[in-house]
């Protein structure tokens, strides 16, 4: 059932992102892709070949990227804005706030290579802040797919949603973690493993690591539930409440800052309704130099780190 059982295939989800976008674009001529000199890095070369007019490249200009996309939405298009996550969210934040969220435009912001996917390129190219920044933009839906299947579902869902959203597209390779029959619904988490002692709530690249951790905890006699939170906004509040109700502690894990991210959203629900011990795993500060997997290990964002946090939260540290 989990990543430990067998050698696991892993995927760079940009391919599924691009394929699904092309499929959508074939069916709906309102779909356009908007880039900032990021056609290659967003894997949109094939999209451009098939729809040369509907791939709009505004050059290296992120404020314009988002403003133009809001204008394209005004003109009846459904823009998928595809840019490296740190520049999209950090450079165009006020455009995301005013032109997209506050103006309630159906624009799909696609943060490529998020978290520490650009490991060695360093903190300017890391997007550990995006979930915190985007959570503090009212009205923006935030989706963090964990694998290829969810990436495809997220693209389809966002195209149909009619409202602004931010999709965090994984580049760091991840295994498939989503059961074929799992629902993909607004504000709905996916419970991947049942468990009674502790709940591990993860998003994106951390989901497969939480599954590994759950296996390890099981071996230690600790029953760990695993939840893929998928929607950071709106959060699956009932699923969080169930975790606080059914299990004695919660561990959250995300490839991003702890301040204000998914874990903070979970902590708020728990603190306001049913306090239980929580451990929030994430990136504490600007990262040093290193590859993505080096950095994830460096910050304890792996199965062992999650196991340690779970034991600590259960008072078995």
């Amino acid at each position, binding site marked *: 059932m989990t990543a430990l059982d067998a050698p696991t295939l892993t995927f760079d989800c940009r391919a599924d992102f691009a394929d699904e976008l092309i499929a959508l674009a074939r069916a709906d001529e309102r779909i356009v892709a908007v880039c900032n000199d990021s056609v290659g890095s967003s894997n949109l070369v094939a999209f451009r070949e098939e729809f040369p007019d509907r791939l709009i490249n505004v050059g290296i200009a992120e404020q314009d990227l988002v*403003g133009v996309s809001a*204008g394209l939405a005004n003109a009846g298009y459904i823009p998928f804005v595809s840019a490296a996550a740190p520049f999209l969210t950090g450079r165009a934040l006020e455009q995301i706030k*005013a*032109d997209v969220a506050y103006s309630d435009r159906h624009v799909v912001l696609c943060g490529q290579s998020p978290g520490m996917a650009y490991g060695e390129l360093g903190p300017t190219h890391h997007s550990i802040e995006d979930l915190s920044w985007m959570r503090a933009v009212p009205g923006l839906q935030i989706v963090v797919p964990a694998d290829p299947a969810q990436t495809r579902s997220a693209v389809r869902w966002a195209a149909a949603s009619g409202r602004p959203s931010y999709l965090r597209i994984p580049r760091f390779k991840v295994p498939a973690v989503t059961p074929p029959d799992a629902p993909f619904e607004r504000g709905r988490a996916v419970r991947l493993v049942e468990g009674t002692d502790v709940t591990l709530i993860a998003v994106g690249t951390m989901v497969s690591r939480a599954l590994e951790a759950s296996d390890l905890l099981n071996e230690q006699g600790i029953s760990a539930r695993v939840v893929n939170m998928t929607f950071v906004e709106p959060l699956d509040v009932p699923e969080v409440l169930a975790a606080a109700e059914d299990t004695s502690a919660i561990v959250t894990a995300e490839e991003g800052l702890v301040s204000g991210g998914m874990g903070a959203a979970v902590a708020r629900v728990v603190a306001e309704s049913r306090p239980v011990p929580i451990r929030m795993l994430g990136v504490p500060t600007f990262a040093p130099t290193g590859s993505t997997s080096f950095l994830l290990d460096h910050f304890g964002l792996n199965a062992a780190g999650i196991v340690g946090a779970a034991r600590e939260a259960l008072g078995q540290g």
Partner: protein
Amino acid sequence: MTAVQTAPGPLELDEPAARIYVELSERLRKASPSEAAPELARISTRIRRDILTTIQAAGMGHVGGDLSVTDLMVTAIWGSLRLNPFQPDDPQRDRFVLSKGHCAAALYSTLASCGFFPQHRLTDFMGPLSPLNGHPNRVKVPGVETNTGPLGHGFPVATGCALGGKLRGEPWRTVVVLGDGEIQEGSNWEAAMTAAHYGLENLTAVVDRNQLQQGARTEETKGLEPLDQKWASFGWEVRVIDGHDHQAIKEAFGPSTTGRPVAVIANTIKGKGISFMEDRVEWHHKVPTDEQVRLALEELSR
């Protein structure tokens, strides 16, 4: 304790006014600039009155920039573009974008004059829970294309509108009005480059060149000259006009002759029409006393 306050209702069509707008604006659009100018001047005077009383009622506003942009806005909306108050989101409408969103009172007054909502609703300006917020909100105010207020946003959005129209091969066009201080924002130069690159001859960017920004003259704060050369070097067809001459404005709002987007540098006077406000920096957002409003309305009726 949540305050108990009845929100003013949503803004609804003013049908008689909308009917007049549709007919008269069609005539003015088709008329020659010199034929249309007197009527556009009359409407502008009415809008100036509405701006003054709207700001008086609210006790807040940006009167200087409202009055400098009035003739431009009226000529765009009444004399050049085809808006549709009966169906504000008519896909075939022309787009008018006010990038200098602090001049919401001018925009609201003009939209009301077109029947997008009744003129008497202008007294709600900035009132508790009013749809007529201090900066335009498209979700609440029919006729507003995008929410502005932070400077440097409307132009990229308008560029996207025009690009969308061009991609669709549709005939409608987009006019965006910028403050001169506003174009110190780099986001505008990103949009200027994009519009030129995509050959958006269906886009007109108007700079309300009143020489003043919030705190001082533009050339003292951060000089913009030679402004025409800036636009030309960014690939635009440039037209420099008197921004209070309705005939010249209507001419300048005519189609591109080069296949390039058109930049209209409209020389204006901040506070135009009210002698004691004209070209004075403090009237950027000073609020006239009742007596000053009386004097101002008197000047306008001369």
